[in-house]
């Protein structure tokens, strides 16, 4: 176990905090030893790394509140972290701050089938909610590809989505209540089991705030009734264009699948190598289409979708309604990101959104970018809502390859914005895309965001340098106001 001899390199500003943190979280709830702290240096995006000043592992809301209060009292920054699977470095630690890890807060507090909701702690994994609700005939609808490991606290912070968002929406549509600890250490309840609160939607504001407005310590989520029937179709095409055409045709026909996913040849190759999912050989694109609902409706839709795929040039469509076959189809899709590790030493997972009608055009431009730069790009995406996940492959042992891959990756985001889309669909902004926010938002927008943030966190200690561009992170840009907001200056608004 850690001894004082191991407490090397703790930033001076934090040494005074350590004994108090130990009082709060217990001996084994505070990590000071350098090699242990280093293990937390990144989340799922390893490109950004920083050794946290100290790591705290609270187990209760009271402990979280006490740790945050302590930080507030000393003006020490803190960064919340759940399972550490985020892909935008939203949980990148602060070298002079406290990393507040919620991985020990993983109790399913209550499953309430009568009110169709569940109350869970932030460290509970997304899939564990579904596991706990399943015996009652319910599940938790938002399903990020990492659902078996990512935790609900992070889902709330990032407003996570997943394959089934097309029909069911993102996390924001499934949270009824939150218990949060504000950046000053106050415990606040927002909403509850009942739906339809009036007034400002503070839950809406909190979801997707990436830890900048506080830490969620308890989450009340809506549960969704398990559908009577679910059918998964796997349709293979000889070109990405044909696949894209099928997507357009399905939506135009008024069918609303719960998911429409698309993978290109490179992504299929990776998934096959990893999990032997048995996708049709020779496919340049596959569509995974899932239909759920009442049996009669689903049966009719399956027929319709199969016809539409064939009309768009699909050479094979398989239908899986058994749990095992369906799981195998999804396994290929859901493991695709990590599976790319099998075909490339390193890669960047990009996340951008384009209007669905621009899909074909943007994919063509991405292919051209890839050909010009000689950098391979695999495409996995939520085709139904235009959420792209290009995987930019490179060899990190090759000098300069990482930088070139970053360039391609950045150019893809430019394409998205150019076509009226967004720089992130579901992975969040974090550190990774903070400097890209000005590509989407005007200076006035960003200043308003900042003002809003400071209403919750006047001292700027809650996950600083994330979400919004800062001079420290992105350099000074002309025209950005860093002083007092003009509304405050003119006495029309008050900062509190």
């Amino acid at each position, binding site marked *: *176990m*850690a001894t004082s001899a*191991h407490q090397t390199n703790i930033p001076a500003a934090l040494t005074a905090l350590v004994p108090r943190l130990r009082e709060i979280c217990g001996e084994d709830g505070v*990590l000071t*030893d350098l*090699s*242990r702290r*280093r*293990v*937390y*240096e*990144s989340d*799922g995006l*390893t490109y950004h790394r920083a050794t946290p000043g100290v790591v705290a*592992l609270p187990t209760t809301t009271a402990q979280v509140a006490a740790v945050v209060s302590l930080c507030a009292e000393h003006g020490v920054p803190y960064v919340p972290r759940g*399972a*550490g*699977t985020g892909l935008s470095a939203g949980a990148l630690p602060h070298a002079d701050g406290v990393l507040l*890890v919620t*991985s*020990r807060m*993983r109790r399913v507090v209550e499953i309430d089938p009568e009110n169709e909701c569940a109350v869970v702690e932030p*460290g509970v*994994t997304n*899939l564990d909610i579904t596991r706990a609700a399943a015996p009652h005939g319910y599940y938790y609808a938002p399903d990020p590809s*990492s659902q*078996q*490991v*990512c935790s609900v606290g992070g889902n709330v912070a990032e407003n996570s989505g997943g394959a089934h968002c097309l029909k069911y929406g993102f996390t924001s549509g499934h949270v009824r209540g939150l218990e949060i600890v504000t950046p000053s250490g106050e415990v606040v309840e927002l909403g509850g089991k009942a739906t339809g609160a009036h007034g400002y939607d503070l839950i809406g504001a909190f979801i997707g705030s990436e830890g900048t407005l506080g830490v969620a310590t308890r989450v009340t989520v809506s549960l969704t009734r398990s559908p009577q029937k679910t059918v998964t179709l796997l349709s293979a095409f000889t070109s990405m264009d044909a696949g894209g055409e099928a997507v357009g045709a399905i939506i135009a026909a008024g069918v609303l699948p719960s998911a429409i996913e698309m993978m290109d040849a490179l992504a299929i190759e990776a998934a096959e*190598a*990893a*999990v032997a999912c048995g996708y049709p050989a020779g496919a340049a694109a596959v569509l995974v289409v899932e239909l759920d609902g009442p049996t009669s409706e689903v049966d009719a839709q399956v027929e319709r979708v199969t016809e539409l795929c064939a009309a768009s040039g699909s050479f094979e469509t398989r239908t899986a309604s058994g749990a095992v076959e369906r799981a195998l189809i999804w396994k290929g899709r859901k*493991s695709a*990101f*990590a*599976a790319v*590790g*099998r075909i490339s*030493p390193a*890669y960047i997972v990009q996340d951008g959104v384009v209007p669905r009608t621009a899909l074909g055009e943007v994919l063509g431009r991405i292919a051209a970018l890839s050909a010009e730069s000689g950098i391979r790009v695999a495409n996995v995406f939520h085709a139904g809502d235009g959420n792209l996940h290009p995987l930019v492959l490179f060899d990190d042992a090759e000098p300069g390859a990482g930088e070139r891959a970053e360039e391609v990756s950045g150019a893809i985001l430019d394409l998205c914005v150019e076509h009226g889309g967004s720089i992130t669909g579901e992975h969040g902004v974090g550190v990774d895309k903070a400097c890209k926010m000005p590509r989407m938002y005007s200076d006035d927008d960003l200043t308003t965001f900042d003002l809003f943030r400071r209403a919750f966190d006047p001292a700027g200690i809650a996950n600083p340098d994330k979400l919004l561009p800062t001079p420290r992170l992105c350099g000074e840009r002309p025209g950005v106001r860093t002083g007092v907001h003009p509304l405050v200056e003119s006495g029309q608004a008050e900062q509190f």
Partner: protein
Amino acid sequence: MTERPGPERLFGDLLNDCVHCGFCLPTCPTDVLWGQEMDSPRGRIHLMSQMHEEDVLTETAVDHFDNCLGCLACVSSCPSGVAYDALLEHTRHRVETEHERPRGERVLRAAVFSLFPYRARLRALRGPLRAYRSGGVSSLVRRSGLLDRLSPTLATMERIAPPLSSPPPPLPELVPAVGARRARVGMLVGCVQGAFFPEVNTATARVLAMEGCDVVIPRAQGCCGALSGHAGRLREAVEFAKRFVEVFEAGQVERIVVNSAGCGSSMKHFDRTMAEAGESDAWVERAQKVSAKVVDLTEFLVELGPRAERHPLPLRVAYHDACHLSHGQGVTSQPRELLTQIPGLEVSDLPNKEICCGSAGVYNLFKPEAAAELGDRKGQDVAATGVGVLVSGNPGCSLQIASAMERAGTPVTVTHTARLLDASLRGLSVEQALGKV
């Protein structure tokens, strides 16, 4: 012949396969217990990288490497194909060679490794344990919690020691096939299996023979080296492996059938063990040939296909996936298939089936508290099925789960796939099958 990459080079390459996605976390038993990154596979790989890149082995890192059960659930859940088994074996070897353990730990390890890989010594332990139990001292000592206070390790050894019956007669060196011969196979006796569950070996040999196999059981086979290898005692493992390779080369067998998951999982990689230890190419090659023949009993029987008649055995059982069978060898469907082929037998799965029971070779002796907690969890999952019979393919799991459930006051009968098959093939009653008459 191209030159093999040295273990260090290979280790660096293998480390790079991890993309830090975290998919390994939920099935890692120590992550389940403690929820901290350095006791998860992803965190341990980070610690291994620190060790590798900076060429230092800190006490902290050793602590967390020691905490790993080596259950390999992370290998099953890794989408990037990280060879955590190879990483861990190399790391443990480095720990054993470079790290000076405190005296108490050294003594305990020396004692365990001079006992467990030797069937005769384990068997000799049966006598004293029997006397100890029948004298009623056992329950008295257990109730007092005295052992727990003196040494959690001793307490664990006492708890997992199975109730003893008279052992069946030792197996001959050749059990001939019944009817037309379909194969000539070798059979591993195993140390713990041989000493504590000889009836499982008898059943295995009988089932193989009844399915038309000549079964070769060399007396000189000794330990396969799995326990030593998994603990990083590479030299010891290699010596055991060499003897094993020699003995089974001489046996002229087509396959080598194993009924103990931990052994099989290690025997399938004799060549890796030899290479890691820097043995000659010739040895690596010989080891590779023998490893290629190694097969789990259930894997082999499914491959062979059923020939002997299955008699009904009306019984509800739950099947426990031993980690080194499911995660270590990818064998999950075969035992279930064989069991469901028995008329009247119903098989159910355990909740959280991918989580280790805490036995993990000799882990329960070195980390008794963590092992007991995992055993209790597994016991609760078994109890949740409402089934009174648990089938397991590994002796360590059988000991661990049986003792956990006895401790919880929900005793269960733990048996081996081979014993139920044997009973079905011989047309025994349920009571006879479970050894209750």
